[in-house]
């Protein structure tokens, strides 16, 4: 029999931490700080709207690009929140989560050999999506001393004549880093100078704790060279509804729509009706969740300080990224030992790129009570490690 598989797919590495997670799920009283999705249920009004749409029999396909009503609400939301102007009719595409948008943006924009600049540590799908689209991932290693922001110099150093797309994953999973307006302005110059396009994944944009979130697409000259990606999973605690969207110039969005209509048809109809409600009346629920995360974030920063665990203060998403280099172990060794000895599960930083070595991703999408117990265990663990080292 011939090999049924393509070279491209067999060359893509599966996520390396699968094994680690399998241990976690078998351990009964383990406390996990590993999950990357909100601990809140979807706000009731949104769920109610989904139920209501089912009762009314709204169970058909929507148009390929999404419900008109939803696209209008998305357009209003982006204007109201981030000063972004997108024509609902031509420049917005409703997708199956932000993940689909990442995939089809790459496929619509890349030719074989085109390079995609991917800052790491970052979410795990940018590299494989680039490869599946025939592109070549070029990793930019972000540094703790810059609070894991992308600097102009780092970007410039990575650019080659083949560079086509820069991925901007901020607010960032796993570091919690954000890019402020001044940071974006600095790199926007370079992007324009080198005629790059930007794929900005702003799925955590509603969860920032410093000033108002700024999108690179709102800077002068950037809209036409940016594909803006957002969704409902993190902001409205709607992960399982699988709903996101991509916005950009008509030229790009219409080509993405082609892939979407042939591969997906349309995003789930029930989810789209629920999302209309989320955008119309969800601001208060979002603000409430943000405040809740922010309290936990302050608590974690404070506790790490108390423990003497080195950690920059994150201002976005719901992750904190402490440094464990002082213990002389790899992230994976540390995480495995922590799980075995104290039954606390965290994700090794290396799951998000090699430069995550020496760091852990801790999610605070967990109740304060949970966090408190987990941190007591973590504190006991690192005290033990320090004592062993001194002995």
């Amino acid at each position, binding site marked *: 029999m011939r090999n049924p598989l393509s070279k491209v797919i067999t060359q893509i590495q599966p996520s390396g931490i699968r094994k680690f997670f399998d241990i976690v799920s078998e351990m009964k009283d383990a406390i996990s700080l590993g*999950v990357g999705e909100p601990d809140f249920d979807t706000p009731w009004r949104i769920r109610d709207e989904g139920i209501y749409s089912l009762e009314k029999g709204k169970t058909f396909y929507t148009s390929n690009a999404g419900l008109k009503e939803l696209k209008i609400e998305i357009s209003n939301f982006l204007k109201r929140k981030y000063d972004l102007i997108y024509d609902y009719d031509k420049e917005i595409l409703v997708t199956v989560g932000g993940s689909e948008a990442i995939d089809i943006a790459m496929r619509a924009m890349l030719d074989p050999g085109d390079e995609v600049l991917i800052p790491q540590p970052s979410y795990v799908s940018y590299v494989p999506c680039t490869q599946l689209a025939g592109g070549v991932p070029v990793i930019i290693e972000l540094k703790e001393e810059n609070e894991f922001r992308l600097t102009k110099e780092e970007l410039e150093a990575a650019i080659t004549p083949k560079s086509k797309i820069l991925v901007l994953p901020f607010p960032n*999973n*796993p570091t919690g880093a954000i890019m402020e307006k001044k940071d974006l302005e600095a790199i926007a110059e370079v992007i324009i100078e080198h005629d790059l396009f930007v794929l900005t994944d702003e799925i955590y944009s509603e969860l920032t704790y410093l000033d108002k979130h700024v999108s690179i697409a709102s800077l002068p000259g950037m809209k036409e060279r940016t594909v803006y990606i957002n969704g409902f999973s993190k902001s409205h605690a709607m992960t399982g509804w699988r709903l996101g969207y991509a916005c950009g110039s008509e030229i790009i969005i219409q080509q993405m729509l082609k892939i979407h209509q042939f591969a997906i048809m349309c995003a789930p109809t029930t989810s789209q009706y629920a999302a209309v409600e989320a955008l119309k009346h969800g601001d208060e629920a979002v603000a409430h969740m943000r405040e809740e995360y922010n*309290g936990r974030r302050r608590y974690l920063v404070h506790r790490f300080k108390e423990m003497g665990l080195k950690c920059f203060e994150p201002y976005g998403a719901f992750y904190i990224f402490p440094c464990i280099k002082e213990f002389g172990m790899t992230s994976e060794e540390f995480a495995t030992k922590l799980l075995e000895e104290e039954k606390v599960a965290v994700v090794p930083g290396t799951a998000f790129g090699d430069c995550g070595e020496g760091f852990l991703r801790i999610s605070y999408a967990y109740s304060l009570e949970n966090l408190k117990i987990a941190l007591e265990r973590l504190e006991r663990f690192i005290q033990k490690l320090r004592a062993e080292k001194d002995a």
Partner: protein
Amino acid sequence: MREKILTFIEKNSRIDLAELAVILGEDEATVANELAAMEEEHVICGYHTLINWDKTSMEKVSALIEVSVTPQRGQGFDKIAERIYNYPEVNAVYLISGSYDLLVSMEGKTLREVAEFVSDRLSTLESVLSTKTNFILKKYKDHGTIMAEKSKDERMLMTP
């Protein structure tokens, strides 16, 4: 600042002061002072425990009683409300807009005890015109808290 403190402690009054300050991003002394001031000013009227008595062996009967009254000259409803709320078995008294005047929430050990309170104490008050007693059969949600047990964390571990 006050609003921030109140919003938090309304749901969790047992939190440690130092922790509360950290979570709110405020100085501990400032939070302590505000709390003291709000207690003094009776903005904070008490710190209670929300109990699901159904899960204990204690027998309790709760009722919501709709009371129509004749307001008294010069004192409106306040005087009659006071006569009612002073009974220790009365949990809450609200002045209500709509088809009756006062809503009285009360608790007794038995049905008879509540019935006796209504017939002997409440109905016999001079300005009470009529009462309508509604017994509570089951509490689903109280003070913004759902009484049913929280479901476990059902999020699955997946590739981050």
